[in-house]
Each structure stands twice: as structure tokens, then as C-alpha cells.
């Protein structure tokens, strides 16, 4: 790691942000534990373990924050150096779009475009291979699940599948 990739009191110190997110989560868990009631040590309540786990989360997150501030940590940029960061971003976008489409459109109408897009947008597969694979595999899986295992995948508002 270059010196410029290791920062201490800077907003792009990735270690610092990791610790801060953990700390925030710890506070949330402590509050949830308190809300659920701690009970007593001889009759612990529903929030007992949550509360103490929240304290531990804050403790470990605090350690990470202190280490990030004293020893520094890699910048966000260096974490993604030499990586094609747009590729996972595209996959995530495709998955989110799929998640939104799954219920209204059903499995077949949402999964065929998903597979096709993933094949074409990351490291492009030839159209003559991408189209048959993206149609036949989801359709084949749907058929197998429906007829062999009796599992009904979502059919959506058009009732396809």
C-alpha cells in the first residue's frame, strides 16, 4: 500500500467508516435490547442477550475506530484499485431490478432478462449463445421444479409460469 493510500484523520479512511457503521449498529442493538426489557440476572428477559451483545458490538467497533485513527487505514479508492468496480455495480443493479420485477412479472419474465443482461453486460457472451442459454435454462428450471418437484415459482400478474 502506498503512503497516500493509508490515511488517518480523513473522511475517506475506509476502516473508520467500517467502525462507525458497526458502532451505530451497536447503539441500535442496545436500544432494542432495552426496549425489550432486560429482566434480571436470575430471570433474563428477551432483551438481555441483545443488550450485552450490543455493548460488545460497540466495544469492537470502538477498537476498530481507534485503530483507524491511530494507525490509519486504506482509502476507499485503494480498496477498489485495479478492480473493475462497474461490473459488480451492474450485477447489483440487475439484481435489484430483478427483485422489483419478480413479484409483479413472475419468475420467467424476470429471470430471462436477468440472465441475458448478466451474460451481455459483464464479459459479453455472443448473442447466438447468450439468447438460447438465457431462455432455455430458466425455462428448463421452471419446468423441472413445477413438474418434477411440484414447486410453483411466482407467476406474476400475467400468470406466466
Amino acid at each position, binding site marked *: 500500500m502506498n503512503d497516500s493510500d493509508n490515511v488517518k484523520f480523513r473522511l475517506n479512511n475506509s476502516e473508520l467508516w467500517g467502525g462507525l457503521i458497526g458502532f451505530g449498529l451497536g447503539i441500535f442493538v442496545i436500544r432494542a435490547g432495552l426496549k425489550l426489557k432486560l429482566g434480571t440476572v436470575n430471570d433474563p428477559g428477551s432483551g438481555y442477550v441483545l443488550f450485552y451483545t450490543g455493548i460488545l458490538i460497540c466495544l469492537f467497533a470502538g477498537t476498530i475506530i481507534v485503530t483507524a485513527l491511530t494507525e490509519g487505514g486504506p482509502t476507499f479508492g485503494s480498496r477498489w484499485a485495479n*478492480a473493475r468496480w462497474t461490473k*459488480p455495480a451492474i450485477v447489483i443493479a440487475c*439484481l435489484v431490478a430483478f427483485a422489483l420485477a419478480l413479484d409483479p412479472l413472475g419468475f420467467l419474465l424476470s429471470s430471462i432478462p436477468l*440472465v441475458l443482461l448478466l451474460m451481455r453486460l459483464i464479459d459479453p457472451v455472443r448473442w447466438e449463445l447468450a439468447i438460447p442459454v438465457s431462455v432455455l435454462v430458466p425455462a428448463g428450471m421452471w419446468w423441472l421444479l413445477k413438474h418434477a*418437484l411440484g414447486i410453483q415459482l411466482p407467476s406474476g400478474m400475467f400468470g406466466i409460469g
Partner: protein
Amino acid sequence: MDTLLNVAHGFGVALAPINLLYCFIGVFIGTLVGVLPGIGPISAMSLLLPVTLSGTPESGIIMMAGIYYGSMYGGSTTSILVNIPGEAASVVTCIDGHEMAKQGRAGPALGISAFGSFFAGTFALIALMLVAPKLASVAIAFGPAEYFSLMVLGLVVLTFLTQGSMAKALLMACIGVVLGLVGLDSITAQPRLTFGRLELIDGIGLVPVVMGLFGVAEVLINTEQAIRRDIINAKITHLLPSKQDWQASAGPMGRGTILGFFLGILPGGGAVVASFASYALEKRLSKTPERFGNGAIEGVAGPEAANNAAAGGAFIPLMTLGIPPNVVMALLLGAFVIHGLQPGPLMITQNAGLFWGIVASMYIGNLMLLVLNLPMIGMWVQLLRLPYNILFPLIILFTIIGVYCSSNNVFDVYVMIAFGVIGYFMRKLGYEPAPLVLAFVLGPMLENNLRKSLILSQGDLSTFVTRPISAACLIFAVALLIGPLLPALRKKRELVALDEGA
């Protein structure tokens, strides 16, 4: 005599045609995911977890177990021929295995790896048959305090062995516990962290969490880099090792087997730790350590035996105590629970057919793997040529289908995608998912045993240190927690720290 009768009974169960078929499917898929980089046994097992519902508990668990030890065999093929570990336990095999392949000795490397795996697998099974019933009879005396401390130890060992900062690993374990507690409180039936969503009343599903953190996140990481494969193109011949190869490998194989078996039993340990430890041991014992890294067959035989022995040993804590020692065993526990079974000290007596059937099937599976991995090696080499840009969309599709089938609920698909994205950022920021998943599974058990032991002891916290087994576990856990603060131990930890989840 009893053991022999039980083994015979187990073979009766395992040799039933349907169980043989499931065993074959398991080891075949195991070899397949072992061979293919980018998909490991954890993803494959979580993908197939719903399939186990369609058959008997024996068939489903036989198949799941087959995937696990099958992947240990298959992983070595990719390591030797492509220099990419098919799964994490085969990382070490790349070092000398691929060097041997480059020197035209891919055949003996693959051969010794398969025979070493078979030998170790067989030993582990015999030891499992002998040790498990004895340990189960001891475990009956375990109370909630012992179970609690043992689970704490398991989590601490795993965080100790996880790559990178221990604070991060412990943070992940704590988050895993919290996620495991989502849903109804098992004692008071009060909903916790459900945010008013009915889907969360039963808790977050194991399958979407694992598929997201390991399956989807792995794909996201892999798409960042174009995977370059340098496959050995020469024809693979002489799979049977020579006399010299056998002589050089016998010792490492034996030592790797014993070391791997005991490391497999330890909570938090597993096949990955075993293979690294065996490699380090062989290098240290060798009169010519400089050959290691340059194609030493001992560097293949020892670790391959160790990871297979560990895979067998890992069944012991699950079968006898009901505590999964690693993520793979946590998934197997999930398979048991799906069928309404609870592994633990009573399972061996109450479900003798199931226990001995699984053990016997593992032996049969080992034989199948020998056939799958030696005469059929050419088929696996062809499979290695399947481009990742075709493979990964299909992995994504299968994970979606697997998650949906596990619960017939679209919400779980959303959970998987969310955990996939979280898992990706976690890995980028150096947070390992393995402690989170193990803690997620152990969380509810951990809480239950803690609360039970506090109620039974009327709030006396000394119950955890006055009971010898509990005290020993906690002392060991504390030692591991403060260990990394000492420079010498920190250095040692960095040497053995591993990426369990890869």
C-alpha cells in the same frame, strides 16, 4: 461388537438404492463445485438444502455430506491443473501441485491427492465410528453452562483463525448473534427486531443469508477481475504414483490424516486450517524444505489427506453435541432441523439408523470419489474450460431458485440479494462472513443455554467457571482473545489466519 452391528446396520441403510443414488448425486455435485472456481461447498449445500425436503432425512443428509467431502476431492484438481483453488481447503495444494503439473507430473499429483484423500477419509470414518458414540455418552452429562461455553469457544476459535483483524471478526460474530435472535423469543414468545414484518416472525432464514454472503457476494467479487485460467494442456498420464512417490508420501499422508482429524473436531477449526497446518508441519519436518514450493509431492499428499480427515472429524461435534464446528456443518445442522431432527448426544441411540447410515454412506461416497476423480479426470478437465462469463449468471439464477424453493417466499430472495450486497462490501472492507454465519446459527442456542444456565443457577454467574468443562472452554477462549495482544502470538495467528469462506 456393538459397533460392528451398528456399522452393518448403517451399511444396510446406506446401500438402499435411493440412498446410493443420493450419495452419488452428492459426491458428484461436490466434485463439480470443488473443481469449479467461484462456487464452493457452502454455496452448493445451501443451494441444495431445499432439495433435501423431497426425500427422507437419511437421503437428504447423505447427499449434503457427500457435497462437503466431495468438494475436498474436487478442489485439488483445479489447484493442480489450473493453479486456482477450487475451494479454500485446496489453497495449499496449488503451491506444489501446480509446480508438479508444470514439470509434467500432473498425473502423480492428482493420483496421490486422490489416494491420500481416500486414505484420510477412511481413517476419519473409522475414528468417527469409534469416537462419536463414546463422546455422545459423555455429552449427555453436559448442561446449559457447558454448551454455552463450548459455543463461545467455537466462535472465538473461528474468529482467531479468520483472516485480518480479530476485532472485525469478533464484530462479525456479534452481528451474527443479533441476526440469529431476530424473530420470536423462544422463551417468552416476544417478537424481536421484526419491524412489524410477518416474514421475520420465524427469524431470518439461514439459506438466504448464506447464499447472499457466500454465493452472490462471491460472484460480485469475481466479476471485478477477469478470471484468467492457465490450464495444463498436456495429456494427463501415470495417475498411479511410483514407488518413490509412495515412499515420500506415506509419512505426510499419515501425519496429515491424524492432524487433520483432530483439527476437524475442534470447534472453529476445519479443513482449511488442517491443510495449512499439515503443509507447515511437513515443511518443518523435511530434510530438504527448499523442495517445498518447487513440486514436492509431500506438499500435496499431506494437506490433501489433512483436509479430508478434517472434513470427517468435523462431523463429531455436530453429531455428538449438536454444535456445528464450522459453517458447512451449520448448514448440515440446518438440514437436520428441516427434517425435525436435533443432532446431539441422544441422536446416536434414538436415530441409530440415521447416524450409522450417514457414516456408512460416507465410506461408500469415498469409494465413489476415487472412481470419479481418477478414471474420469478428463471430464473434470473439460469442465474447467467452461467460461466464467457463462457460469456466473447461472450461479445467480440457481441461488435465486434455491432460496425461493427453501421457503416459497419472495421475501427471502430480497434478503439474499441484500446480504449479497452487504457481503460484497464486507469483503471489500476486510470483514469475513464466516464468523457471522456460524454465530447466526449458534446465536439462538447460545442465548437459550445462557438464559437456562442463569435461571438454573439462580443468577449465579460463577456456574460458568465452577463446572470444569465449562471453565476449561472459557479459559481457552479467553487465552485466544488476549493472545493476539502478544506480539509472538499475533505473528503466529497471522501465519495460520485463513479465509474460511472462500
